[in-house]
């Protein structure tokens, strides 16, 4: 009975959009600063890893190294943007700024606040992808036909990492403890999700583990295929995996936050 309460479908109205708007308004205040990382980071990574390290790697699966990592850079940015927004960012708004308390004194519910936070986190992922695609395209490392599909997909992938971040926010005893999931989950994903080298280079067991439990693996698969301009049926598996896990964690994180905040 108690377990089932974590998977109750939350009642969310369009009010969640007002929370999204609030965060968007704050983001717009510092828009220049907020646009800098997704603009600069791919350039730095591509120069250092793609063209520097890439000279020694030459090619992976017949693709130049810079082109291999370019889609991974977008995927990593999608992960970081929403995970950090809904972990550190949401925690600060919840605990230090008491923003959630102020909002739930109005007709909005806590479910709507949390949903709005995650929708905003996903939007940040989408914004990052949108800024990075033209930068990477300038290097000629992305197929422009399908790359626009990366933008809506970045929202979906972003929502997944937003929900993951929110689950940790719901249980973290203090802000420092968010370092644990970053160190034990996010950083391994950054390295072992087929980002900078193909998964096939790892022992079979780890490959299975990555496919089963590391969401970034699936996000990288999809964005890499779109970046290469190759649509394969196997992408459906990644897409379904992401949608199912995202839906479960979205509902779970809202209920976990409710348990934390409604006393």
């Amino acid at each position, binding site marked *: 009975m108690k377990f089932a309460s974590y998977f109750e479908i939350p009642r969310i109205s369009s009010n969640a959009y007002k929370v999204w708007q*609030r965060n968007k308004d704050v983001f717009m205040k510092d828009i220049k600063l907020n646009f800098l990382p997704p603009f600069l980071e791919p350039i730095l990574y591509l120069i250092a890893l793609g063209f520097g390290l890439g000279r020694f790697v030459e090619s992976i699966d017949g693709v130049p190294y810079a082109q291999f990592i370019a889609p991974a850079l977008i995927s990593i940015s999608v992960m970081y943007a929403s995970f950090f927004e809904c972990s550190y960012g949401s925690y600060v708004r919840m605990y230090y*700024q008491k923003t959630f308390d102020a909002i739930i004194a*109005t007709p909005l519910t806590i479910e709507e606040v949390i949903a709005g936070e995650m929708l905003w986190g996903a939007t940040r992922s989408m914004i990052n992808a949108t800024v990075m695609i033209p930068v990477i395209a300038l290097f000629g490392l992305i197929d422009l036909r399908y790359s626009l599909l990366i933008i809506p997909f970045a929202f979906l992938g972003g929502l997944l990492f937003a929900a993951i971040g929110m689950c940790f926010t719901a249980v973290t005893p203090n802000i420092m403890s968010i370092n644990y999931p970053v160190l034990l989950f996010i950083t391994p994903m950054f390295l072992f999700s087929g980002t900078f080298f193909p998964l096939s280079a790892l022992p079979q067991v780890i490959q299975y583990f990555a496919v089963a439990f590391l969401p970034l693996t699936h996000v990288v698969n999809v964005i890499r295929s779109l970046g290469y301009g190759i649509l394969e049926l196997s992408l459906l598996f990644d897409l379904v995996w992401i949608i199912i896990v995202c839906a479960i964690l979205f509902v779970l994180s809202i209920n976990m936050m409710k348990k934390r905040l409604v006393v």
Partner: protein
Amino acid sequence: MPVIVAENLRKTFKDLVAVDNISFSIEEGEMFGFLGPNGAGKTTTMRMIQCISPVTSGSLEIFGMDVSDHQREIKSFMGVVPQENNLDMDFTVYENLMVYSRYFDIPKEEAEERVEELLDFVQLTDKKDTMTESLSGGMKRRLILARALVNRPRLLILDEPTVGLDPQARHLIWDRLRLLQKNGVTVVLTSHYLDEVEKLCDRLVVMDNGDILVEGSPSSVIEKYVGSGIVEAENDPQLLECLKEREASYEVIGDLVHIYTDDPKQITDYLTMECSITKFSARPATLEDVFLRLTGRRLRE
């Protein structure tokens, strides 16, 4: 018509009983105060009224609607000044009110008008474009009051509205609350400042340990529990002897003795004539005397 009706309202946290079967009713247009030491259950009661903390048992109706299933409607008629400042520090004064009005679905043009009015009402028009972090404590409180009014509430809940403010800022807030009451707004507040409650409230309750100890108008409560006057005298055995003889109502507080009476003149005459005590002073009784008498002088954490 009552705006808030609580019957056997109870709230427990794990093994702590925060609010223990209290009943009260607050009339429309009333200014109603909740008094009590820290941990008495005032804030918990306020949070249940605000529909943000679920009721454990009993019933709580606001505008005739149950708090457990009409939260959205109730909250749309209500303004809240929380104990802790929770202004949005990512925004300026003006933006705070505009963003907040969006949560109530107030159309933008209407909101702009109201916000200008409210800034004027709490005298913050000059600070319109200031980030809230750089406001003084009094300004923050005034802004929170303005924010609580963006939806033109019929019920205003204030949890220690003037905590930490200088006398000027307190008076401004009191003045504004009276004005709101005159316009028909029901005001419910908690406070540690007993003079504040005495001056403002039509009725009050004193809470302790989750229970309501007394209820009534400030003057009737004072009358009933301490009498209208207090004579303070230095503690000495002779005095106590004297008072016992007369069966006077008194309390020893360290070096002082408080004698509760409806007729201070009679007591002071008695003390000078019969007991030859001359060091004393008489003053009208206040809510503070009632408060301390009912809830004791032990420090609360």
